[in-house]
């Protein structure tokens, strides 16, 4: 880790946690503002022991993710908000201090609003997804911006309510 590695690692953590807050709030633009527009690549992946394959469930560039979230109002959706509990496990800063990689654990709860019967289900929180964020960053002026996020899910069972970037 370079001389200023501690501060850079802190900047990386700050960006990861701010991204979790932005995604929890459906503040898509705030999330995209944490990503480098020309480089960012987003993926949701999972390994399926059932078919013995690494799978891609969703992927896109910054522009493609922007298009996707801009189109969300035109689509029907479950209205239950998601809450991410993110824990940054490792941050590795490159020798020149210009890039970094991080691995975080993420547990996502669905705070039921629609549910199956909202009269009964609303207000309850259910475990929704578990996985890890494998992130890459570029560091400029002490700020870490995402250049890549691979959300590696443990789930292959995904019921309704999975309409958004995770």
């Amino acid at each position, binding site marked *: 880790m370079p001389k200023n590695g501690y501060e850079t690692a802190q900047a990386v953590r700050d960006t990861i946690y701010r991204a979790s807050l932005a995604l929890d709030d459906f503040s898509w633009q705030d999330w995209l503002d944490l990503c480098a527009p020309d480089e960012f690549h987003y993926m949701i992946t999972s390994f399926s022991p059932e078919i013995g394959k690494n799978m891609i469930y969703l992927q896109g560039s910054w522009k493609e993710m922007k298009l996707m979230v801009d189109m969300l109002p035109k689509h029907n*959706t479950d209205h239950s908000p998601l809450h991410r509990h993110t824990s940054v496990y490792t941050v590795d800063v490159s020798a020149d201090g210009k890039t970094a990689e991080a691995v975080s654990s993420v547990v996502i709860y669905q705070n039921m609003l629609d549910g199956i019967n909202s009269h009964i289900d609303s207000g309850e929180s259910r475990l929704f997804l578990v996985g890890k964020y494998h992130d890459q960053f570029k560091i400029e002026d002490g700020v870490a911006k995402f250049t890549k996020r691979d959300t590696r899910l443990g789930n292959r069972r995904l019921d309704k309510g999975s309409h958004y970037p995770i």
Partner: protein
Amino acid sequence: MPARNHSQWMAKPPLADDEWIDSRIYSDQEIFEDEQEKIFKHVWVPVCHESELPKAYDFRTTSIAGEPVIICRGPDDEVRAFLNVCPHRGMLIERRPSGSFLEGQPSGNPKRITCMFHAWQFDMKGNCVYVAREKEGYQDRFCKEQAGLRRLRCEVKFGGFVWVNLDDKPSVSLEDWAGAPFECLRKTLDEEPLEIFHYHKAVIDTNYKLWHDTNSEFYHDFMHYHNRVTGFNDAYFARNNEAFPHGHVVVGTFEVNYENYEGFESRGELSFPHLPPNQWYMIDLFPGFNFNLRGSALRCDTVTPLGPDKVMIEFRGLGLKSDTEEERITRINHHNSIWGPFGRNLHEDLIGVAGQGTTMRPGTEERRILHGRQENQTIHDENGMRHYYEEWGRWVDRSPSQPDQAYSVRQGVAAAE
């Protein structure tokens, strides 16, 4: 008409008998048990794709009507199916969803299907080849030659899907069961090997037939912004809903305009063999299996009913085995954009059937479910569901609109025939 009082609400709809059904067929425990016994234990089920067990000694496990099933590829390259049940004390033999028997297990040898409980071992043809301390325990009264697995009817067909039937003597062969509806895609699916690239499942609190209904009727395209902007044109509304024997339906094709959805692209360059660009075929097989080809990717849905108000749906996505890495990625992106768990359409379909499940839970008042749209058997005609429920009535011997009465051909069907 203004909002109705209770007797108006419960009255028979002013439609032909086959144009509505009683919602108890979606919620009644006894009917669910009838369906398991009378339908699912006797029909051909596409349990997986052969590319899920590509090498000799690969296996895959599944279940049909509550019966655990194991699929194996033998050293002779044959794919076989057995009950995944040890003939000794009924232990589930293989507990993993997939794997290879090339490696030995703690209780058994390589190249054997081993029951971990008492180390009984079987070969890939289901022969019992080892009973631990056989002579000491059974003397000459019982031997491994009498302890083979329960074999099941199994065929690889229609694009490499593995079909299993629990019935030793099915009423019709697989070809006679599904050959006619698959005719529209037979050349396409059999031209070259396919390969699976996507798997996920959903467990939804709804009846399995409601999922199949949604796959069979396209009137719900009003729910899908994507389908409205890429589809609604004269060619779309002219698509045929064609009924086939055994309750199957095929929805005819047209050219989808994917570019009309912001950010999406034509799929023409990766069309499946023998198809013009951007075609969309749908094959719905009774009682709940769906093959959906949108130009560059094939989707297969398999339902496993878990109760009158609970279903597991397995979603598979397939491309061509010959795909380059770049082609495969593009196919996956096309597949995911609509059908992936984070895609535009599938999620909306799941919300739709979950909502139906909410209003038709066991114990709720029966409802009149309308299947009465008549549009010359084109895309928004509900003839697919009407055709399905006549087949359903015959299998369970119940009237779909009066399920506590025995089946008889309903008014609209009789008139049509």
